[in-house]
């Protein structure tokens, strides 16, 4: 079925190392959103990308939307313990369904 895949499922890094999570859709997306869920919390919106090849930055976080609008990435430079959580991408994958489809998520653990 139409879906959004994320890799890796889990990553453990030392504080100060970089981290990247990748999101791949089986269909072309009109837009993609990224969310962060802290342990025990609920997903919180980070950013939305709309244009092909778009790159947006939020401090140490860099978000990219692929040229074909079927993949996206989130890169964190010099991770901190506050970056711990699960990062989800989400998009309108299924045009017959009006809801956002969330990726499986990447859980980031940062070792101090």
């Amino acid at each position, binding site marked *: 079925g139409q879906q959004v895949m994320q890799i890796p499922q889990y990553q453990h890094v030392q504080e100060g190392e970089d981290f990247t999570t990748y999101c791949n859709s089986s269909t072309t997306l*009109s*837009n993609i*959103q990224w*969310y962060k869920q802290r342990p025990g*919390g*609920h*997903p*919180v*919106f980070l950013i*939305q990308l*709309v244009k092909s090849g778009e790159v947006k930055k939020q401090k140490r976080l860099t978000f990219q939307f692929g040229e074909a609008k079927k993949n996206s990435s989130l890169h964190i430079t010099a991770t901190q313990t506050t970056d711990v959580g699960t990062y*989800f991408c*989400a*998009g*309108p994958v299924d045009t017959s*369904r*009006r*809801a*956002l*489809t*969330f*990726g*499986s*998520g990447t*859980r980031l653990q940062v070792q101090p």
Partner: protein
Amino acid sequence: GAGVSQSPSNKVTEKGKDVELRCDPISGHTALYWYRQSLGQGLEFLIYFQGNSAPDKSGLPSDRFSAERTGGSVSTLTIQRTQQEDSAVYLCASTTSRDRMAEAFFGQGTRLTVV
């Protein structure tokens, strides 16, 4: 209210009982989602309401699950004859968007445990 409110925050129920979960979206938000999240897993879409349009129920896992949204605001998700596999966190989200282009605001969720 200031954000999406869900109640109860925790619910423990016996297998076979019915449960009702409530979601109060952000005032003025026309779209409302229900998702289910099992421990350590992703978000599983359940149902989507948009204004007065017919809801998208394509994610409901069985006919034991139903949801309604009264007056375009408060929504209730009902699970009949609960089973242990229904144990999960049920998350509600609302958004202003008609076309899935806007940020979704999530509630804190209801943690359902079926014993």
